[in-house]
Structure formats: C-alpha cells, structure tokens
C-alpha cells in the first residue's frame, strides 16, 4: 500500500469532469474504429438497421453505446467496497480476455486432446528444468555474492568477470556456446543438462547481484555480534546473515524464477521437448498452432500464478520475526 492519508479523498470516478472526459475519450476512440462489421454491429441491428448500410449513424450509435456502458460500469464499481472492486475488475478483465480468445474460433476438442501431453511432457519438463536451474543458480549466486564482497582480488575478479560475461551475452547464445562449445573440450553433454547449465549460469549472474544487495542490507552490527561470539565466517553467513537476507532476496528471486520459466523455452532450440517446443510443434500439421500457443500461454500463466502464491507464502513465513 502507498501511505494513505487519514482523510478520505473524493472518489475520482464520481467527479463529473472525470466522467465527461472518460466518456469523450471512449467515444472518440470507438468512433475512430469502425465496428459496424463486427459482432457489435449485429447486436445493434434493432437500433441501426443493417449494420453495413448504417454509415456514420451506426458507427456513432455503437461508439455511444459502448461509452455509456463503460462509464456506467466504472461509476458503479466506484460505489463498491475495496475487495469487491478488486474482484469485479479482475472478473471483467478476465472476461474480456476470454472474449478476445473467443474471436480466434479455437477448436476446444483439439485442445482437450493435446492438453494432457502438453502437461505431462511440456509443463513437467519446463518445471524441472527451471527448478533445477534456479537451485544451481542460487548456489552460484551465493558464491558470486560472497566473492564480489570479498577482499580477495582473485575471487573478486572471477566473480565480476563472470557476472559481466553472462549478463552481457544473450541467453540464446549461451545455450549455443555450451551445447556446441563444450564438446570441443571433451565434454559432450546432452540437451537437457546443457540447457540447465546455460540457464543456471545466466541466472546465477543476475542473482549474484540480488544476493549481494541482500547480504549488504544486513546491519554490520549483526556481523559484529556474530564475530564477537566467536562464530567463523561460514557459520555467520549460514546462520546469521543469509537467514536475514532471505526476506530481501526472495521477492526478486521469485521474479527470476518466473522469468526463468519462460526463458527455459530457449532450450527448445537444442531439441528439449518443453512446453514452448510442444506449443510450436503440436498444432503445426493441422494448422491449429493458435490453439496450442494459447494453451501454452495459459499454462505458463497458471504456473506463474502458482509461483507467486508460493512466493507470498515464503515471504509470509520470513515476516514472522518482524511481527510485534
């Protein structure tokens, strides 16, 4: 929450100037679009007659109707209590999205037929590749952060070179470098390990910065207290600093995980059958790629939502020691 004032402000959507401006903007917007040829025109047939023949009158009537409905909707939502407002707006946006997908005339039976395979093969692969990668990336990030904060020139140089290199290169190129380059050194690795390695190294570089700022956010008094009790560096780090840095580290790490879920699609170029690969492949023969792409999009979204929920649970867990 932003810091709210104790005096209630007027509801902006109930101010006449705002309603007028909103109405005018929407009217202009939909006047610019000619909707007479769409479903909207059909719905307005009783008023404007044949939509195709209705000309500017039809166009205006449609824009006017939409503007009235929209403004009425906004004004009414303005009266509702906060939680209800949130629920209604979510629901409306969701319905708009569904209506948008509806215009693609998707074949639901085809989706239903392919969905199990997309989940058992695609989602599972995407998830385990990402999960293993995020674990390795976190381990790299801790090492990288410690090295970056250390006074050891060797460690510092390696860590800064590493983060600079892997943040500076496109992930796709890293995938190629690892998959094609490592065999030259005698390590022939399969597509999945190569993908995991590329994702880990790339995200480890980003997360090094997250862990570094997390560690730095801890008051130096904690180091001093820990040191004054005789704890060594490892013990201090493991038991004192990192547990306190985690609440700082976890939200951005959650973001990284979500973004990794989607970036893991890049490993499809080396032939890993993850979700994106299947989305592009399954519907191709029968020209139903739109079905597969939208299904995959929804699956990615659902996975992201689940991760967000898990993330907030973890944040909640770590907020424990801050409750008064």
């Amino acid at each position, binding site marked *: 929450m932003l810091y709210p004032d104790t005096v209630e402000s007027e509801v902006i959507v109930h101010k006449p100037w705002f309603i007028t401006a909103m109405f005018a903007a929407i009217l202009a917007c939909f006047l610019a679009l000619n909707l007479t040829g769409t479903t909207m025109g059909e719905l307005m047939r009783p008023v404007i007659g044949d939509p195709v023949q209705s000309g500017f009158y039809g166009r205006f009537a449609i824009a006017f109707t939409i503007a009235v409905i929209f403004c009425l909707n906004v004004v009414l939502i303005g009266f509702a209590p906060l939680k209800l407002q949130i629920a209604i707006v979510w629901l409306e946006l969701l319905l708009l999205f569904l209506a948008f997908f509806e215009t693609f005339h998707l074949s639901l039976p085809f989706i239903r037929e392919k969905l199990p395979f997309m989940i058992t093969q695609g989602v599972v692969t995407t998830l385990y590749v990402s999960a293993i990668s995020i674990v390795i990336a976190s381990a790299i990030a801790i090492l990288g952060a410690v090295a970056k904060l250390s006074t050891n020139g060797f460690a510092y140089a390696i860590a800064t070179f590493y983060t600079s290199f892997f943040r500076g290169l496109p992930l796709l190129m890293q995938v190629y470098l690892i998959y094609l380059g490592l065999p030259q050194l005698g390590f022939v690795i399969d597509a999945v390990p190569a993908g995991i390695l590329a994702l880990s190294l790339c995200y480890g570089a980003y997360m090094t910065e997250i862990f570094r700022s997390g560690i730095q956010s801890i*008051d130096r*008094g*904690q180091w*001093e*207290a*820990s*040191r*004054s*009790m*005789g*704890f*060594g560096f490892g*013990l201090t780090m493991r*038991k*004192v600093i990192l*547990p*306190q840095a985690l609440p700082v580290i976890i939200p951005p790490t959650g973001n990284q995980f979500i973004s990794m879920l989607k970036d893991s699609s890049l490993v499809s170029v080396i032939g890993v059958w993850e979700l994106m690969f299947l989305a592009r492949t399954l519907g191709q023969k029968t020209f139903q790629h739109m079905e597969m792409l939208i299904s995959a999009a929804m699956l990615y979204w659902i996975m992201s939502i689940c991760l967000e929920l898990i993330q907030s649970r973890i944040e909640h867990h*770590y907020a*424990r*020691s*801050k*409750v*008064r």
Partner: protein
Amino acid sequence: MSPDTIIQATNVAKWYGAFQVLKDINLTVRKGERIVICGPSGSGKSTLIRCFNRLEAHQEGDITVTGVVLHDKMRNVASVRRNVGMVFQHFNLFPHMTVLMNCMVGPMWIKGIKPEAAKKTALQFLERVRIPDQANKFPVQLSGGQQQRVAIARSLCMQPAVMLFDEPTSALDPEMVSEVLETMTSLARDGMTMVCVTHEMGFARAVADRVIFMNSGQIIEEGKPHDFFTNPQHERTKLFLSQILKH
C-alpha cells in the same frame, strides 16, 4: 605478567587512514576488576574496547587477552572471542531467532554443547537478567531494556572471562536505563570482570574499581571513582565532568 591479568595493552596505537584514534594506550585489566571508560565522543573509547576482542585491529603496541597476543595473522581469534563477551549499544540480537535461541546458539555452535544443556544454561541466565518468561518471543517483541538484558544473557551463556560493554544504555529510553544498569551492577557484585564504556556516572561511582578518562585517543586520567569525581587532576576531565554532571 601476573596470571590474573585478563587484558593487557601496551603502547597501543591505531590509525584510521591518517587520523590517529588511539595513542600510546597502556592498560591492564585484572581478574574481577570493574573498569569504566569515559570521555567525550570521538575520544576513541569504543575503538579501544573493540580492539580487545579484535573487532578492530591495532597497528602498534601489544594487546594480550587471556594470555593470547592479538595480531594480524592469529589463527585462534575465535578462542579469544569466546572468552570475551561483548554488549553493544544497539543490542545486535539476532532478529530471526527467538530470545532463547539467541542465548543457545553460542554454546551450541562454538562449544559444541548439546541443545538440552544449552537450553538449561540459557534459561538460567535469562532468569538471571529477569526475563525468563520472554524466552520464546522474538527480539522485536521486546522493549529496548529487555533486549539489552537478553544481549547480556547471550554473552553470559558463553561464560566469558571478561565482559565488554560498549555504551549499553545510550540507545535506550530513559526509563529503561536503570533496569540494564541494575543487571550490570548485580553482575559486578558477583565478581565478573568488566570493562564498560559508559556515560552513566552514577554506575561508575557505585561499581567501578577504576575510572579511565580518554580524550583524543589518549588516556589522560585514571583513578579510583571517589578521587576521579571529587578531585579530577586534568583540566579536560574537569570540563567534561562539569558538563555531564551539570544537570
């Protein structure tokens, strides 16, 4: 050096860059002694006691603590630190652990004491500082005075040879100062060796065996509390005492 010497500093000097914070410090703390170090802010008194458990490094002179010489390349600094308890101005409790855990982790991780035994010791010392009923709370749920008492208990659980106090009451609300001072006084009465950096002159008068006055990194006056307060020798000491005892 006599066997009951706990801390011995000889000709200690320290610089922050070009700025000299400690100049030619000579100080001996014997077993059971209670020493109060006072002085204006920036006089180097905190820095000095932080040198005693090597939170800070000194550049010249020698510091010997419990028979171990502190220097740059020492490998056994932890063995010194476990014998030297330190209480900080800002408590520095571990906020992600309960009060009880704060007191248990030192003995468990450093001395390898079993959790049950560590818990017993911890409760005993929490009792000692009179807050056993808060054992399962987190530090943020406690008042400043209670937190500082937990910090004292945490150090005591390590059963140190000497306790260092670095302005333990400076960050407290006025009404909480006395509860912390009472705890410290009772410690002193039980014969704990203590080195306290504090401005609490009442405490110094009642408890200290010696009061040390520092200015600009030097010890400029040292004496029994009675002599120190009633008959200060140095002009700087007189000025300082007149300022803090004025109100």
